[in-house]
């Protein structure tokens, strides 16, 4: 108590070495203020940050707890000079630091710490594109077997024989989820098979935009195999954009229409197992595929075939055997080789030297 009283009488030490600088790699309008702690930091309420345009009149712009040496003032006008003072606050007692040097904030065009990501995008993207264009020249490429895809023909054939429909859902993803787009590509191929064999296709949707695209894709497939007349516009339809309402409705379709085959391919959340188990209970053959790792265990347990992760993306190339798409897979494979090599090389460097190798991947 006496100590506190004493401090009350003689005051507390102000923070020192106040330094202000433009916040790097940002969109402007922000200045970082740094200081060294007050010697009486332990008993302070915290630090108040004061700002001035002219070095004369200061106004308070912020407050931050004790034992902090940094404050971001994110409310500055770009191109204007500012001075900063930091105040050690204890009850009503304020000790002002010296003023900082004048500083200006400014926006940057490139976020430098993200350079590694840009480089990775360029390398891997470049590789893929190189092989895509290379493939145009018609070089034969090999792709290993993917179990779920080989079952597609049987699955469609079975539905035809049984005179039952095929259900295809792209899941609960939106058009911006790449898995949805990959699924739409596969849908196109399956729609072609349905058109050829005259098998009914049921394709319910959660996202109105995906629905619109899917409708075009399916229609085009029917046209391509010369059966535009067989396309039933009501086979592709929208249900609702609410996840579980969609799951309830698709479950209903499964038990009422009793499709011979269910395709659950795309982007899924918790409804994955609702759909897969309901489908399994009707005795349908089920082919699933998603890149959503948390949902894969449920598809693996409840479905007959599951496309795991990247297999989903390889699928459309695999079915269509189009050289352009196959070329991309070759590029992806090379990318994975590079990652493997980077892992090994990084580990060797990391183990043998003291270089901060992990910083490359921040």
């Amino acid at each position, binding site marked *: 108590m006496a100590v506190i009283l004493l401090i009350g009488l003689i005051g507390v030490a102000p923070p020192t070495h106040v330094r202000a600088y433009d916040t790097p790699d940002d969109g402007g309008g922000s200045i970082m203020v740094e200081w060294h702690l007050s010697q009486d930091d332990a008993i302070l309420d915290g630090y108040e940050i004061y700002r001035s345009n002219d070095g004369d009149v200061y106004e308070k712009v912020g407050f931050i*707890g*004790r034992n902090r040496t940094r404050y971001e003032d994110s409310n500055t006008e770009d191109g204007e000079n500012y001075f900063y003072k930091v105040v050690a606050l204890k009850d009503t007692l304020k000790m002002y630091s010296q003023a900082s040097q004048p500083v200006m904030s400014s926006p940057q065009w490139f976020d430098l710490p993200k350079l590694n990501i840009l480089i990775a995008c360029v390398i891997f993207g470049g590789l893929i594109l190189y092989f895509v264009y290379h493939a145009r020249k018609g070089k034969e490429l090999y792709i290993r077997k993917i179990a779920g895809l080989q079952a597609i023909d049987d699955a469609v054939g079975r539905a035809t024989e049984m005179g039952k429909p095929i259900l295809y859902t792209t899941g609960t993803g939106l058009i911006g989820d790449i898995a949805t787009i990959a699924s739409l590509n596969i849908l196109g191929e399956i729609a072609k098979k349905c058109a050829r064999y005259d098998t009914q296709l049921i394709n319910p949707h959660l996202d109105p935009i995906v629905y619109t695209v899917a409708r075009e894709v399916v229609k085009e497939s029917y046209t391509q195999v010369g059966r535009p007349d067989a396309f039933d516009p009501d086979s592709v339809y929208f249900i609702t954009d609410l996840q579980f309402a969609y799951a309830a409705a698709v479950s209903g379709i499964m038990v009422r229409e009793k499709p011979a085959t269910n395709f659950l391919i795309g982007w899924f959340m918790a409804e994955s197992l609702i759909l897969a188990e309901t489908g399994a209970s009707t005795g349908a053959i089920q082919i699933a595929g998603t890149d959503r790792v948390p949902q894969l265990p449920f598809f693996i347990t409840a479905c007959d075939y599951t496309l795991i992760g990247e297999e989903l993306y390889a699928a459309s190339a695999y079915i269509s055997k189009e050289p352009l798409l196959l070329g991309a897979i070759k590029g992806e494979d090379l990318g994975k080789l590079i990652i493997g090599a980077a892992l090994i090389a990084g580990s060797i460097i990391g183990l043998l030297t003291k270089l901060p190798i992990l910083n490359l991947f921040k």
Partner: protein
Amino acid sequence: MKIIDILAKIDRRIIYLILLVVVILPLIFPSAQSVRVMPPVEKFFNAVDNIPEEKALIIDFDYTPQDMPELEPMAIALLRHAFKKRIKVLALSLYVQPLGLAQRALTQVTEEFNSTAETSADSIIYGRDYVFLGWQVGPILAMLSMGESITNFYNIDYYGNRTDTLLLMKHIKNYNNVGIVAALSPSDIPRYWVAYAQNRFGVAVGAGVTSVSASEFYPYLQTGQFSGLMIGMKGAAEYEEMVEKELSVAGRRKASESLPSITYAHLLIIAFIIIGNIGHFVKRRQK
């Protein structure tokens, strides 16, 4: 031979029915199952327990009726702990919807204590032992503003009193007077507490989360950003266990009472897996 066939192909509806029975019976005839307390909850308990006399515990009630089964027992256990040890409590919600549930939990535990209290010193009194700050607009704004002054941001409490007139608030200015923030939320809120209240003002944060979201929060415990973590029904039951064993506070232990349902459901699923495999193997032998 017939039995084996049946075992390998039990109708799923029978599985559903047995599962339902196994989950429902312990709910109707509750008996609290005791649990071994794991380190994340033990840390949480100790962090609350060690709050010094002059500091308060903030409880952020941010669960909705949907997540109530898992998160409400945590709130009750925390309140019992605090009231028993006379730790001052500041209750708040960052969203409007949970306010009613917060009120419900506060009333329940206050009544538990006051029904046996004989003197005013024994009782839990609003304004002296706890304050319900209610809700003010903007979750992040609230986290930041409380770093400077709690009574300036929450100038009136849930009941419309001016907070600066409340006895408890006389000594509670900002996070410097807060021992730990306990955030009970099914969403990202505990992370925001770390990003905005802890990083800027150094206040300790503990979290109570649903078991669905558990894996997202583990890393925060490892890095020490969370001073404690309760996950789902089991985490709540562990806290209940500590409150009862360490502080001998009696009362309904809703999470502990749900544990038998959870345990039996797991054991049932395991049993079905075993039965299925027995059926499978015997049949394969026969072929």
